[in-house]
């Protein structure tokens, strides 16, 4: 029952660590209380304001809606996502202090996010430690693929949830305990809608789109493409078989975000992966 795509059921969120090392008492994550518990949006994370505010003295007089005698107006003027965004900022600071760039990878299902990570891990082995937070509604498949590729991974299963949020990533970072100077990838749940709304504390947002999805995606999912720092166009090896106009994609993406970077590559064939590695290197 998420407003855009029907996600919900916060009891079903699970964080699973796939590397036994992470279970040892390494550095704790961004928050100073326990981790690894299932939690939902905004529940069980304590209150952000110290007082119990049993009385609201900033309340103004009764409104004029006919219920005037019986209601009291409390003026809040507070951003709906304030709690998520505060926690995201907390995650971001924690990561920045440890010199850990965090890359939030978002796309529709199957664009090749995990494939790109597998290749990136292989490429960076021996030069830079990579850790991955995998977000999927169900299964440990992607975290297992990452571990097989040689990196540590934590799987966040969101149940019916269609995106990762800052509390989930906070818990995942706590379970993963990425070391100073490592590179953290956050593979979001495959969905071009809701993940765009939720800051998780990343340094950069990357949208992956594959050429089989069509070149009209930026204008169909404008919020996602407006939020992107980089658009990766994957599966260029399939260009001969599909009608995908890279120039059109560029034009649409730039109409939403004039300075967005765009890298077209093929994970399968390895074409232009150097541009991606160079982009990562600059983080």
């Amino acid at each position, binding site marked *: 029952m998420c407003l855009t795509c029907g996600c919900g059921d916060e009891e079903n969120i699970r964080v699973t660590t796939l590397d036994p090392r992470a279970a040892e008492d390494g550095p704790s994550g961004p928050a100073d209380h326990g981790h690894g518990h299932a939690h939902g949006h905004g529940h069980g994370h304590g*209150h952000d304001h110290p007082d119990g505010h049993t009385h609201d003295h900033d309340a103004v007089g009764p409104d004029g809606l006919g219920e005037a005698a019986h209601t009291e107006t409390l003026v809040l003027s507070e951003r709906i996502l304030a709690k998520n965004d505060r926690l995201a900022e907390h995650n971001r600071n924690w990561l920045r202090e440890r010199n850990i760039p965090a890359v939030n990878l978002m796309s529709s299902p199957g664009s090749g996010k995990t494939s790109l990570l597998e290749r990136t891990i292989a490429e960076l082995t021996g030069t830079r430690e990579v850790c991955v937070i995998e977000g999927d509604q169900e299964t440990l498949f992607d975290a297992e693929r990452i571990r097989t590729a040689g990196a540590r991974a934590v799987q966040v299963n969101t149940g019916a949830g269609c*995106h990762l949020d800052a509390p989930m990533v906070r818990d995942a970072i706590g379970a993963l305990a990425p070391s100073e100077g490592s590179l953290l990838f956050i593979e979001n749940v495959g969905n071009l809608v809701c993940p765009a709304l939720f800051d998780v504390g990343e340094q950069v947002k990357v949208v992956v789109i594959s050429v089989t999805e069509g070149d009209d995606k930026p204008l169909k999912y404008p919020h996602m493409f407006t939020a992107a720092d980089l658009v990766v166009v994957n599966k260029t090896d399939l260009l001969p078989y599909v009608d995908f106009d890279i120039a059109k994609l560029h034009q649409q993406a730039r109409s939403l975000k004039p300075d967005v970077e765009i890298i077209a590559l093929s994970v399968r064939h390895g074409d232009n992966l150097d541009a991606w590695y160079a982009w990562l290197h600059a983080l």
Partner: protein
Amino acid sequence: MAITQSVVDMVVDRTAGRRVASVQLQVGKLAGVVADAMRFCFELATSGTVLEGARLEIEETPGRAACRACRDEFDVADLVLLCPCGSADVRIVAGRELLVTSVQMVEEPCA
């Protein structure tokens, strides 16, 4: 359930157990959130809370953008930012709001 749940959590947090008659939101047309979907979710999200039965009032605010080239301000219906003057060097100045503006609490003597 994300956004609507965040509204409920915030209001529950701020109202100290008092019953809530209505909640006022401001949702910008460029905020990426569909007001009707929030209305749809609200009843389910509030059931069993102090907000149960409360009214949800959403003020939808239009998108406005400012052009850096000609310094004009104009309405925008979507995120494609192009000034009538032809410049794309445009900044959104309104329409991305996603706020709980106020809450009406039922008057009850406080113990």
